[in-house]
Each structure stands twice: as C-alpha cells, then as structure tokens.
C-alpha cells in the first residue's frame, strides 16, 4: 500500500501541476471573453446612431459595385441613359438576372433597414433624428416598390422566417403619412443639427431636409397622379405649400462618396470596365438639342472623337460589330472618371426635378404657385447650372431653341427619337412631352427615377429595345417591373405566392405596377 500511495502522490502532483499550468483554477470562466469578437461591436448605444444613419444613406444609394448590379444593368438601361456593350450581360435584352439584382435588394434590407429601425427604435418619435430616419426610410423604399410593386414593408427588418408583402397602394399611403409627420417634427427643430456631419447629404441642415421631404412628397404624389388623381392633388399641394427645393447647388441632395472603405461612386468605379456606353436615345436628344450638358454627361468616342451612342438590346454578336464597341461609343462623362471620379458626389434628388414636377402639377391644374412654362424653363435653367453650365446666353438660347433630336446614325440606322423642340410648345400634349423629355435629361444618370417616370408618362419617347431574350416580352415591348426576386422565392416563398395577388396580374415583367396606368 505504501508503494501505491507513493504512485498516487506522484500522479496527483503531475496532474495538478499540469492542470494548473494549463488552466489555472477555473477552466471555462474566460470562454465568453474568448468568444467575444474584439474587432466588432456587440452593443449599440446613442453614440453609435450617427454611424448607423451614415450607413443607411450610403447603402441605399448603392455605392461601388452595388450600383452596377442594382441600377446600371437595369433601370439605367431601361431609362435608356446608357446601352450595354458587354457581350455577357443580357439585362439590356430584358433578361432579369436575379443573382445580380438580389445583391442590392439584400443591401437595402440588411444595411439600410436595420440601421433605420435601430434609430427609430432608440430615439424619441418627436426628435429630428427620428424624422430624418423616417424620411430616408421613404426615399429608400419608394425606389424598390417602384422596381417591383408589392414588397415587404411594414414588417421589414423584423427577424422572422418569413416576411409578408404589402401592396404598393398601402405602402404609398404610409409614405405620405411619414413625410407629413416628419416635416411637422422638423419644423420645430430648425435650430438643431441632427447627426451633424454624419448626415452625408445635408450635414444635418434641418431646413434642407424639410425641402427634401416636401420634394420627395411631390414626386410621390405625381407618381400616383393617374391611379388616384384626387389624392395626388391633395398630397402635391400640401407638399408644395411646405416648400420644395429651390436653388442649385445649395439645395441639391448629393451624397458624399469616399475612397475609404471602397465607398465610392458606383458609376465612376465601373466606367473603366467598359461595359456600358451612351445610348442612342441620349445621343439623339443631346446632339439634336445641341445640349451644353453633352460634354458633362459623356466623353467623345475614343476612336472617332465624336459623341456616339448605340441602341439598347443588341445581341452578343451585334455587339462585336465595330460600330458597337467600347472604342466607337461615348463613355460616361469625365466627372465619373474611374480614378479621379471615385469620390464624385452621387445624385440623390436635385432641385431641377422639383421645378419639372411643379410644371407638370401646374399643367394638371394643381395649385403650384406658378405657371407650367415658368417652372419648365426654371427646371431647364436649374439643371444647366447644376451641371456647371453658367453661360446665361447659352441657357436662354437653349430654352428658346427650335432644335429637335436627330437621327443618331447608329448601327441600326435609327430615326430621331422624337420631333419636339425645347422651346415651350403650344399644345398640352407637346408640353407634357417636353416636360417629360427635359426632366429625363435633367435626371441623368438616375435610372431609378428615369425608368419610373417613363413607365408613368411614357416620356421621352424612347427607342424600342432591339432584341428581347425574355420569352415573356417581345422585342420593342416596354418592361413594366422587376419580377419578385429569386432570393425571395427561395427564402420567403409562401409570402411571395401571396404577394402575386397584390399585383393584379401575373408575376412577370409585363405586369404594370399599381400607379402605372399605361
């Protein structure tokens, strides 16, 4: 037994020594600390909210690569600001590549929505910060409901296995309510600077945010003007009474971009990729009108030193024709240069648009505080100034110009886009087309808004898309929406099925949205 004791003592000593050497006394006490990620933040307090707001602004406006897969490959082409020249991208021929567009969809719901919800949940509903988050919520969601129609809205950002869709009509109703409420709050907070420099658009300038909210309100009112004229009039007049954007560049909503963290201007980063060029539609209008914005919007083609565009929807083989290549067509303008333009501020909403909305409102007989012609011309002038055209004589000449779009002499030998001049016309039909066409030129390069307004008004009279690879729509047809996303069908299938009934039509690209009465 003595020997056994001896052995045990030795064993115990070794075990204890090694045990304490390895673990100390307590073994798993520090596991929670070990499993805490020190490169991240585990709890959010008030001091983090400004960073969340900045992220919400940056993400929903689509920076860097998300701009391409969310906007440039879709609405920018459907608004015919640009035409695709990459042989491997079919979206210009109406094929909706769900794997691409699913990316920015995810960005909105996971990088914008949770941030805004955190702010709204952690601030007083009567605070300026809460109001800004609410306005940004509306701006963010209107772009996506105008892409798809019914979308998850009221339950968005609430962790669950499935999230219901809401009809576009009730979403718009909430938009109007939110904007009205936010402006009411902000009017009592004009001395504050919510989020300060973290607000990447206005630096916390409450007065500008009031104008922004009212202009957005007016934009949305105009959008429903065909489906619900009475509501549109009421909402539009209320918005205008509160004051819309008036001056450029002071009031223009442009978001900062930064090289830091790759948060760069999306159009700039992709411009050297040579995957898109000026559209034939832009060429026809800008060249025909001898538009001073042409050298701002585009760069002459490398091989000809002239401004050249191509038609939307060319096939891969057509795109290998010398007339349709990167070298023979115009690249997007110098401010979107691939290296010097990465921090170029990105358009969110500009003053010029406000005047065109006022012009159309006046033509509708709404109380807008002026005449359609004055607002139309003010819109042109504001847009010119926004893009750096300051020569008053040139602007005046443009406003009075009888020039009309020209035939672009492209690969398909296309005719002129339309025959209307810039100078204010005599008939309402001409005037409506003029407002639509000039607003389209002014909105450049905002394809989200350009495509939405084209679907509502069918202005400008864009070229038919040359080919369709989508069996649901013939060549020359008009794409009316983005179908429900594949990622949603895979992950939220039951709710997507229910959402089809909110569409009033099949889940196809040809089904018009609620406000689209064409």
């Amino acid at each position, binding site marked *: 037994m003595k020997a056994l004791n001896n052995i045990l003592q030795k064993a115990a000593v070794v075990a204890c020594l090694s045990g304490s050497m390895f673990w100390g006394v307590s073994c*798993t006490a520090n596991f929670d600390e070990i499993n805490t990620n020190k490169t991240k933040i585990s709890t*959010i307090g008030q001091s983090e909210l400004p960073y969340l707001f900045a992220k919400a602004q940056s993400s929903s406006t689509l920076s860097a690569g998300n701009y391409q897969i969310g906007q440039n490959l879709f609405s920018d082409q459907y608004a015919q600001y640009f035409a695709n020249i990459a042989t491997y991208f079919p979206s210009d021929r109406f094929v909706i590549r769900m794997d691409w567009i699913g990316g920015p969809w995810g960005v909105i719901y996971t990088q914008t929505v949770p941030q805004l919800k955190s702010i709204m949940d952690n601030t007083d509903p009567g605070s300026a910060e809460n109001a800004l988050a609410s306005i940004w919520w509306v701006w963010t969601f209107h772009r996506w409901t105008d892409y798809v129609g019914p979308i*998850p809205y009221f339950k968005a950002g609430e962790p669950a296995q499935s*999230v219901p869709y809401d009809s576009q009509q009730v979403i718009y109703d909430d938009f109007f309510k939110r904007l009205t409420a936010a402006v009411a709050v902000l009017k009592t907070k004009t001395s504050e600077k919510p989020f300060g420099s973290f607000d990447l658009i206005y630096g916390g300038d409450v007065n500008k945010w009031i104008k922004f909210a009212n202009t957005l309100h007016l934009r949305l009112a105009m959008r429903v003007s065909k489906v619900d004229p009475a509501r549109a009039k009421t909402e539009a007049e209320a918005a205008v009474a509160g004051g819309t954007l008036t001056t450029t560049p002071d009031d223009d909503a442009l978001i900062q971009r930064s090289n830091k963290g790759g948060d760069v201007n999306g159009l700039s980063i992709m411009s*050297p990729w040579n995957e898109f060029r000026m559209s034939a539609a832009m060429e026809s209008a800008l060249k025909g009108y001898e538009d001073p914005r042409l050298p701002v919007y585009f760069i002459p083609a490398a091989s000809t030193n002239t401004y050249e565009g191509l038609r939307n929807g060319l096939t891969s083989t057509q795109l*290998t024709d010398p007339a349709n290549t990167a070298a023979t067509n115009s690249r997007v303008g110098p401010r979107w240069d691939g290296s010097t333009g990465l921090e170029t501020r990105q358009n969110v909403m500009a003053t010029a648009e406000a005047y065109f909305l006022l012009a159309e409102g006046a033509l509708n007989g709404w109380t807008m505080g002026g005449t359609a012609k004055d607002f139309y011309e003010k819109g042109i002038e504001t847009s010119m100034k926004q893009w750096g055209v300051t020569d008053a004589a040139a602007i005046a000449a443009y406003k009075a110009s009888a020039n009309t779009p020209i035939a672009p002499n492209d690969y398909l030998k296309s005719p002129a886009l339309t025959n209307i001049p810039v100078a204010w016309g005599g008939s309402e039909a001409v005037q409506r087309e003029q407002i639509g066409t000039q607003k389209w030129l002014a909105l450049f390069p905002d394809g989200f808004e350009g495509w939405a307004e084209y679907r509502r008004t069918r202005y400008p009279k864009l070229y038919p898309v040359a080919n369709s690879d989508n069996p649901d729509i013939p060549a020359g047809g008009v794409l009316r929406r983005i179908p429900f996303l594949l990622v949603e069908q895979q*992950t939220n299938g039951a709710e997507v099925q229910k959402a089809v009934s909110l569409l009033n039509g099949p889940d196809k690209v040809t089904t018009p949205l609620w406000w689209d009465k064409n």
Partner: protein
Amino acid sequence: MGALIVNYFNNLAANYSYLLLYMKQCLLLILWVFLITSRAIAQDQTVSGTVQDENAQPLTGVNVVVKGTTRGTTTDANGAYQLRARSGDVLVFGFVGYQRHEVTLGNQSTLNVRLDPDNQQLQEVVVTALGIKREAKALTYATQSIKPAQLNEVRDANIVNTLQGKIAGAYITQGSGGVGSGSRIVLRGNRSIQGSNNALFVVDGVPINNSTYSQPGGDFGAVAGTDGASNINPDDIADMTILRGASAAALYGSQAANGVVLITTKSGKAGRVSVDLNSGVSFDRPFALPKVQNQYGQGVGGVLDPSKGDSWGAAMTGQSYTNYLGQAATYSAQPNNIRDFFRTAAGFNNSLSVSGGSDKMQTYLSYTNNALQGTVPKNDLVRHTINLRASNQITSKLSTDAKITYISQKIDNKPRTGEENAPVFDMYQIPRNISLDDAKQYETTNNLGVPTPTTWPSTLNSIYQNPYWMLNRTAINEQRDRVIGFLTARYQLTPFLSVQGRANLDKYYDKNEESYSQGTILWANQPGGKFIRQNIITTQKWFDVIFEGKNKISDSFQIDYRAGAILQDSRFERTTSTADGLNLPNRFNLNFGSTLSLGDDFVHSQTQSIFGQATLAFKDAIFIDASLRNDWASTLPAPYSFQYPSIGASAVLSDLFKISGPLSFLKVNGSYAQVGNAASAYLLNTNYSYSQGAGAGFISRDATQAIGNLKPEITKSLEFGIEARFLSNRLGLNLTAYKSNSVNQLLRLNLAPASGFTDQYINAGNIQNQGVELVLNGNAIKNDNFTWDVTFNASLNRNKILRLSDQVKRSTLGSTERSANPIVQEGGSYGDLIAYRWQTNPNTGQYVVSAAGLPVQTTGLEYVGNFNPRYLLGLTNSFNYKGITLRLLVDGRIGGVATSGTEMNLAFSGIPEVTAQHREGGWVLPGVTAAGEQNTTPIRAEQFWQTVSGKRYGWGEFFTYDATNFRVRELSVGYRIPLPKMFIKTAQLSFVARNLFWIYRGSSILDIPGLGKRKMWFDPDVNLGNGNFQGVEYGTLPSNRTVGLNLKLSF
C-alpha cells in the same frame, strides 16, 4: 473493463470543473484495478544479448518483453539489452518495421537475436492518434502507411501532392497559386458545406495549422494562398500514416472528422553518427495547356482587324499588314506563343541531416533548402527548414523529447488565379497571330518617367491586359517565418504506467504584399498604383497530459489504456494595410500611399478536452477498443460541453484458429465512432461592424443572424474491414467498407433578406458518405537478384445529401453563375454541378434551335454532373534488380466532371482549336425550332460560339468534360552505386519524373453535331483553390510535368 472506464468518463464528463479531482479518482480506480490483477513474479536469472538488423547493424530501441508479463526493456545504442527472466519464459523482440521474434529461454544467459525486416508491416507498431504507438493488428479501423522514400524522391513543392495515387480513398486537388500553392486532400468524401473537408495534418502527435488564408470562393479568382501542410519538409519525415476514418481519429475530436494524415518526424538514433544528404534537381514544364487553333488571326467576321483581341479574323497565310503597334508585320500563326510564355522551371532540393547520440541522449539535426521555380516566369519559392530534435533519458524513469523546427519561406511573384486580369489567363487570350516578341513590348515611359501600358489588342480591354505587364508591373509576394516545436516529458510511474506531458507550439508570421503599378486594369484604380500589405500571426498552442498503461488481467486478458487532458488554443491576428493610390507612382510602400486604409482581424478560440481510451485484448488476438472524449469549446454556448464515443473490435482469426493452405493471416475488424466539430468562433451573438467610408465611417449590423443555441457538428461513422495475407505474406489484401453520416451540420442558409438578415446559421442536415477501399499488395517475384512488388489501391465513395433543412433544400459551394456552379442539394450529391444547357425538345429529345439556326438555352441551370470521382485507382510497381530500382505509379479516376470556364471564355474569341471549324458558314445544326420544324438555317462558328459563350458568362454544358483520366504519375529509376569501403556508406542516384503522360483522358460531355467530342485538355487535379469551390476550371494554372535527378548519400 473498457465499459467501466467509459462509464467512469461519462460521469466525469458531467462536471468539468472538478476535472482534476475526477482525474485523481479515475486514476486511483485504474491503478487499483490493475495493481490487484498484476501478479507477483519471481525473477530467476539475468539474460543479456544484442539485437541486430538484417545487415548485422545494432538495432536501438527494440522492445524486449517477457511474454505474458509486463516485464521488459529496450535495447541501447549498441543494440544491447539485459533483463531478468526464468527458463521457459518466452522473450518477445519487437521493433517498428521488423518481424516480431519470439525465443523460448533455456538456461542460457546470453541471447543474441537478428530481426528480419517486415516488408508487409503486419506485426508492426503503428503511430495512431495523439502519437500513441499501437500494434497494428489491434487496430479496429483502417490505416495506411507511406514510406518516406515515396515522399522525398519524386517531389512536389507541396508534399500533399505527392500523396496522389498512393492512398486508397484520398482525392487530392491542388490550388492554382503557382509554386507552393495550397492543396486539398479529401478522405472518404466531402461532408462539410461551410467548413473544411481537408484532412487534419498531425506532426509528432499534435495537429498543425493547415489553414489557407486566401481562397477563391468563385471563378473570378483570387490570390490562392499557401496552406500549412506545404511547409512540411519531406526529408524530415520518418513515417506517414493515414487515418482515413473518424474511428481512427476520434481522439483528435473536433478536427478529425475528415480523417488524419499523421506524420512522425525523424529523431536521433543512438550509436553511430550518420549523415544523410538528399540532393535533387528537377525541371518542370506545363503539362496541360489550352488547345488553340492556328488558322485564323485577329479580327471579327473573317476580316483582319489588328485592333481586335479576338481571333475571328482572316485566315493567316503570311500576308503583310500593319500590326497593332503600327509596325509592318507578317500575319502568320504563332502556334507556340502560349507554350513559350511559360518557362522551364528549375527546382533544387538539398537536405542534410546528422543523427546520432549516446544511449542517454540522441539528437537529430537537419537543414533543408528548397529553391523552386514556377513555370510562370518570375514565380520563385525559396524555403529553408532547420530542424533540431533532442531526446534525453534523464533517469531510468524520466525521459524528455524536444524538437524545434524553423521554416523560412519566401514566394515571389505568385500568379493570381482565376479569370480577372491574371497573367496566365491574359496569356491564353493572346490573338493567334501575335508573337511573344510583340507582346513583350508591353510598356512605354510617359513624359513624367512613369511606365504606361502599350496598346494591347485585348479581347476585353476592361478586364484583360498584356500578360507581360502583369508579370513585370505587378507582384504578389509572400514571406513566412514559422516555428513549430514541442517539449515532452515522460515519466514511468510504475513498470506498467507512465505519464507524459507535452507542450507544443505552432506559430507563424506571414507578410504578404501585393503591388500593382499605375495602369493595371482592375487592381490599380487610383493614380500612382496600389499597394497592399498583410501581416498575419497564426498561433496554435497545444498542451496535453496523458497517462498510459498496460496490464495483464489473466493469462488470456490484457488491457492497455490511456487517459488524458488536452488544451488547445488558436489565435489568428491579421492587419491589412492598403495604399490605394500612391503619391510617388509605383513606389510600393505604405509611406507613399495617398489613401491609406487599415483592417484588423482577430480570431481566438480554445478547446479543453479530456479523454479515455482502452483496449482489451483476449489471447492477443481479439481486441475490443473503446474511447470517449469530452470537449469544452469556447465557440459554443455555455456549458460549452459535448462528448463523443468510439467503439470497435478486431479479431485476428489466423491466430485464433489453426489455418492451413495459402492463407497466412486473417483479421476482421469493425468500429463505430462519433466525432464532433465545435464550429468557428463568434457565431453566438449578432455583432455590428465598423467600416470606413464617407464622413467618419459606418456601423452596420452583420447580415448573418447569430445562432445562440449553436450545437457542434457530429459525424457518425461505421466501418468494417478485412485484412488477409496469403502465400507466406507475399500477397496481401485490405478491404474496408464504411458509412458516415454528418449531422447537425452548421449550415449557413439564406434568409428572406426582408427579415433584416441575408443568412442564418442553423444546425441541420444529414450528409452521407458510403464507400469501399481496397489495398492489394503482392510480392510477384522475389529472389536474390530480382524482386517485383505491386501495390494497388482502389476506392469508391458515394455521397448523398439526405437532408438539408425544412426551409432550404439547396446550398451553393461558391458564388458564380458564369460557367458551372457546384451545389449541395437535398436528394443530390455533394458537388453537383449545375449549368445552362442546350434545350432539347421534351418529347423527341432533339436539340432546340432558334429561328436564326442557333442553340436555345435552357431556362434555368440544370445538372451536368458531379465534380467528385466515382472511382480512384492507383497502381505502383516496384522492381529491384541488383541495386537498380524502378518504381512506376500509374493512377487515375473514373467518373465525375469538370467545367472549363477558360475554354468557354476563349471560345467567344475564336481561340480554341474547335472554333476553327465551320468558319466559312454553311453549318446547319440538326435540331428543331420551338415550333417543331426541322432547322435549315446555316450558321458560322462565330455565331455559334458567341451564343453559347457570352464570353465571361456562358452555358457551362458546352464546356463540361468527363474528368476520367489515367496517367503515369510517378516514375523513378534508381541505381545504388557500388562503393568501396570508405566514409560514404551508400549512394543512390535516381532519375525521377512526375506527370509523364496521359494514358487516357475523358471527352466533352456534349457531342455537338458537326464538331463531335473534344478531349479534355486541362488537368482536373488543378483547381482554382483548395476550398470547397471545386469542379470549375477558370483561368487555373496548367499542371506540370517534372523530370529530375535525385542523389542520396549516407555517410
């Protein structure tokens, strides 16, 4: 007894905080049981003698045991031993690699013994999990050993690649990162979707870090990183054993579900000092390059256009033209422009080792230098490995063993892999009429003295650049300093019980730098260029204490057992500094950066474990084996704990029953094991990330929902084996069948993004692998002058995804919808590839053709095959004739497919050989239109290929190949130079070669009417990376054919 211990450990596992107390109690129990069962022994006489090997050299470390007792000793440096025994006792002499020898003792006091080598490795001792040495026949699971000579003769920069064809059930692919790139070894099929499927590498009992820090997750490409295993120096390896299944590896717990590659490194031997020199030189050339056409040059539509990168131009007949540089030139084919871009890569491997010592202390010291070139110009690897091992017998009971290995590795100009502006892919795009002399004029200097790219006729000038610019104006350099060391102390508590403590450190410092000159497409967006530096520190610490014992219970029963505790701690620290834009152009240092950004990564995890294992032997012929392990992992929610058992049995029937006839040995075994995997760190809580951006930057919530109730993954594995030998062990057969189910997989599933999260982790799924492995070896001819040995291995694995989850039925293994996509889908197999295909009429099966006479695409991605082989085969023949040895390894795979994104991309531009056909038109595809009418519209090749390949995105089916292939993998011819008695003892000179030639290659799966099938031109063993994204070749580097000479000298 085994059950008792298991039970005890079960209780023990219940409350870890009392670990030490329990261990003491446990130990007490074990000791008590064995002490009362040990019998007292009278020791009558002293026997001494020496043990020699077949060459009459003394053998050190031979176990000499009195049979049926625990009494024993080992031979010293002179092969001498001494012990007490009595007449009639049987002395058993055992040594690794030698046949066991038994002698019944008479009255003599001297007993000299000569041991015969055991070529069949039957009675041998095998190193198993945790470095525990066990008798091979007691194992209840399959293992396979590889001789060091098979690893350090025909070499590869990554030792993993040299295992190809030698191990049953191992599927090895190498990454496409140039020399020193990481490799992937999968044993018994893929089982993890999110995690690694790579086998665990264990050196001297302790797992080493084998992570690859940079991994292509899609075919756009990436810098394919170096792995940890490639640092292992084959010259220091004494033994390599592959534990294929979870049963074998259960003691490693968390990391062992994928099987284990166990490596034992050399240690010093007492007695004579030996010096070994292994010196090799080798030359590599690309083995598989794209097959290109040499009839048509630059242009489109059959018209010469020197500004175009595509080769759809006029036929090349030696016309005079002005080339893209504005120079007068001849328009003629450059059939070797791709091949000549690659260089003959020289490799030098030199290793010197010194081993020796006294019976109290032995040391092993080695230095190895590997200076290797890649076939892509400028891609060089230099590795220095210094290895020092010291073993000490301090007292008769206390011994220590310590090793330190220092590895310094530098890789210059690592070629980027994949499609996006990578030098090799840029090279493949070269128009068929452009010479390398033209291409070498890749830059001019601008008025500020800065190099500027010369115009280059690229097929896509936004993505692809002159390959010489990429070679000379960009660089990806890596430097690694790594220290691996251990310190072991072992104390013999009683003759039958020992305790061992071990501390192990594996730490490496990586410095990775990327520089891109101003003007580099895609990678340098800002003026001045771009520079990235990563500093990575990877630390893995391991401490364990193991009690080990062995007792005889009765005449028939014997038990051996281990119990121990392990602590493992891993840290990964990385800082990434990026200078995007350089104020001084092309000065690649952070000091010159115009925009600097920093990233900081830190991952820390810890696992603590206790385990017990026991083997009960009956008549030294029936073995029952059980183990239980409990882990506490920091990555799991409290109480952090999980446990898993293993149980197995084996019976050596040939020892139990009298056998006669040709059968000389027969063993059957079976085992069942579970292995857990505790998942990665930081999954339990939702975190917010800060990122740089406009203003003061952003905070965003992570888009993956946390899993608060995270459970460990469990792989359950069952295997049965039979081992038989015939004709006095000249013919051997080893057959194993297994089935494993991996459940509770940590799956990352897509969530409806509207919920605020794009992904969530869940524990679900059931992935099943079933298979059979066969190893046959035979000694066909054996006489004094000539021997012929044959080893054949074959395996098959069938994978089935039994279940994913209720919500999600499909998961992808990488992001791409460009050529083909590897997926995991319920009802399918791991690694099914889906791609766009040519639509067929559902009724008639005829191809559907558009009004323009061109193929019509399927509406969605459809199944085109699976990337895993169905069968793997390897055959080694070794001949030995009077000092001349010849070893030939032929191996291959049957089944599985691989999709070539490279060919898809090049086809759009008229570069592959097949695109030369039907250029002039008149090609009518025999198909029907959607309306069912016979197609009559003629097309040209250009239209056809541009339809099925959109260049960067295309229809994968057209470029998918049956990956079946056989090749002469290794050849070595050696000559043992006869030497007079001098200080050089042996000298062996070998000619060695790898990837000598194809014996068979599969063809494209699609038989395109009018073109037929094409033979696979690429090597499916090379993949973009060594992660789970496999089966798609897109801009991967060619594999290499190697020839070389190797000289081994012993002094």
